[in-house]
């Protein structure tokens, strides 16, 4: 089959906020073009923030993405606290870490069960799966519900959190609530994980490797989601305020998502990068799960991202239990009087010290950066939000450039499926990973 012309147009996804297409163009057996196009409506969040009172940014930017609204809220809060020169209390930070872990668990469960699982059992979606493999769907529902219960209790609502604000929370959780959540996590961890492993260990992961630059947060003492320095497996570590040394942004015409990539080469963010860079800090059960799934750090196979997400999900459950234990042993305090939280519509706002602030967290899909500049009245003057999927676009294209020449002799359906699965593996936002693909081969 080599020597022929192939054009693959996969009408797909690739969200920063939405859909995308894969375009691969082969002329006489030679790869001419590989593109991942984003064709979603532009959102303009950075512009919307201009002129707003600083704490309003939290609830506006959490509306960038319904799947990772907690991550956006945390990145936004951290950018503002950076500019205010505030270090939140220990309790506030622990609660934020629990929220991050719950969101990552929810998002990964959605990807692994609702999106990836149907592929592996040859079903078009989770809907028929509900009758053919009800246990799998029910497990997914239990995991998601657990994550939602945790967020609902701590911040009033999971999608679009309410009470997490600058320098604290506007509500207070009780120790009884914490104990209840902890026991729910324990139950899921003990009952569901073995069954889940059995299901996912049967998955066939396509063989493909490309060594890339793994980028994620890292910090001593724990597997970083909430805080840390930016670590590149190739170029070392960067402080959060120096993020631009690693991440440059450019607008490419085929995408409404701005592509982000390091000054030198494409890099990967997300579960597999975190797994590769911070493997040693995973909780014990998560390490066991990795072993059972045959996943070893470092892995250079992007199709392994789904497995890395399963490992992280187990880690998140164990990690949350550990944090709940720490909270309960110290006792939960009402800190609102001593440290009044600064909500979006708090009427009297403390002045901003520094003219700019940066917040970096690990969203489920990888490194998320918010940077704001402020004027003297505490109004936002400009904003920059760099979203994980935007950072992965260049890396996915680089993977496709390596993958395609090696599989040109295979049937069209297989080429398409492998490309589709590759993009899906990156989990470029749920909406991106599901809809039907229109494929044109020009021969």
């Amino acid at each position: 089959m080599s020597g022929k012309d192939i054009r693959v147009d996969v009408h797909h996804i690739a969200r920063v906020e939405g859909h995308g297409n894969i375009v691969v163009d082969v002329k006489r057996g030679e790869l001419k073009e590989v593109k991942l196009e984003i064709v979603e409506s532009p959102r303009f969040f950075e512009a919307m923030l201009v002129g707003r009172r600083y704490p309003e940014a939290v609830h506006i930017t959490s509306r960038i993405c319904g799947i990772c609204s907690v991550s956006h809220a945390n990145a936004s809060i951290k950018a503002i606290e950076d500019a205010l020169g505030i270090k939140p209390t220990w309790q506030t930070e622990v609660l934020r870490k629990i929220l991050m872990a719950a969101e990552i668990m929810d998002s990964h469960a959605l990807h692994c069960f609702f999106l990836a699982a149907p592929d592996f059992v040859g079903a078009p979606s989770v809907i028929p799966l509900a009758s053919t493999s009800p246990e799998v769907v029910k497990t997914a529902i239990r995991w998601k519900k657990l994550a939602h219960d945790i967020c609902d209790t701590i911040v009033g609502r999971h999608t679009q959190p309410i009470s997490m604000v600058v320098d604290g929370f506007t509500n207070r959780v009780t120790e009884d609530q914490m104990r209840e959540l902890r026991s729910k996590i324990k139950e899921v961890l003990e009952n569901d994980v073995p069954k889940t492993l059995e299901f996912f260990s049967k998955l066939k992961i396509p063989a493909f490797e490309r060594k890339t630059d793994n980028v994620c947060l890292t910090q001593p003492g724990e597997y970083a989601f909430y805080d840390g320095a930016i670590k590149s497996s190739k170029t070392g570590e960067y402080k959060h305020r120096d993020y631009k040394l690693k991440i440059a942004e450019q607008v490419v015409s085929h995408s409404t998502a701005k592509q982000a990539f390091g000054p030198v080469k494409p890099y990967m963010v997300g579960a597999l990068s975190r797994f590769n860079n911070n493997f040693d800090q995973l909780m014990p059960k998560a390490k066991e799960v990795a072993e059972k799934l045959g996943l070893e750090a470092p892995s250079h196979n992007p199709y392994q991202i789904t497995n890395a997400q399963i490992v992280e999900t187990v880690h998140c459950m164990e990690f949350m239990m550990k944090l709940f234990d720490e909270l309960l042993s110290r006792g939960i305090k009402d800190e609102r009087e001593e440290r009044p939280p600064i909500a979006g519509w708090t009427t009297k706002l403390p002045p901003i010290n520094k003219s700019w602030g940066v917040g970096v967290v690990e969203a489920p899909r990888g490194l998320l950066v918010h940077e704001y500049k402020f004027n003297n009245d505490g109004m936002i003057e400009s904003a920059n939000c760099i979203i994980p999927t935007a950072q992965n676009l260049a890396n996915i294209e680089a993977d496709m450039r390596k993958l395609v020449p090696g599989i040109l002799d295979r049937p069209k359906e297989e080429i398409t499926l492998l490309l589709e699965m590759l993009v899906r593996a990156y989990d470029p936002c749920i909406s991106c990973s599901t809809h039907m693909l229109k494929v044109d081969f020009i021969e």
Partner: protein
Amino acid sequence: MKKPKVGFFEFTCCEGCQLTVLSLGDKLLDLFESVDIVNFREASSYKGQDYEIAFIEGSISTSKDIERIKEIRARAKICVALGACAHLGGVNAIRNFQRQSDVRWRTYGDKAWLFDSILAQPIDAVIKVDHVIPECPIDKKEFLRATASILLGKKPFIPDYPVCVDCKMKANVCLFHKPNPIACMGPVTRAGCGAVCPSVGNACEGCRGLIPDPNLSAWEEVLKEHGLSIEDILKFYHMYNGLMGVRR
């Protein structure tokens, strides 16, 4: 009985409302059983074009959106606006009150001209909407209740009284009266969420839209007493209710 065919569609938004549907827990399985979902990008790769009920999430913000939503309207017997983006324009409409050339430049620099974009609008600016399920994001219980009503051929009940009523019933201390007051839009906003935001100590931002005949001037006076400027008050409206003047 033949199950009604249902489609979920998204325009400009965070997709948090569709995700809320996917997070219904056990009730999600009931939903799968009582309707035939032929179009749900968040959950399925299958795309059917024969639906009777269309749940539409998100705002209209490109010229292509207008064509697409008109096609959906032409196919569906019933169109339901899902969430604040579809109902009110949502946070997407914040930029309507800024200069559009600035908005585009700030996000895409000199490539701004490459992207199709018009002012963000609620879906009823373009098509006839039969029912609204408000809030940002939609409330799970309200969604189930409203969907049940729609399937029975009835109009879903959405209250007309303000959030303050629900808030008082929960015996919350009013945010305006706290030691560090937080301005709240509860007095002019449509209830039905159980005052979920004030109940966890944060402002109602008006995401369910205004009540009929709200006493806006009295509310604005209270905000001014708390030191908010006219500009601040306008920004408060712009969170979700910037287009109210156009709508009323």
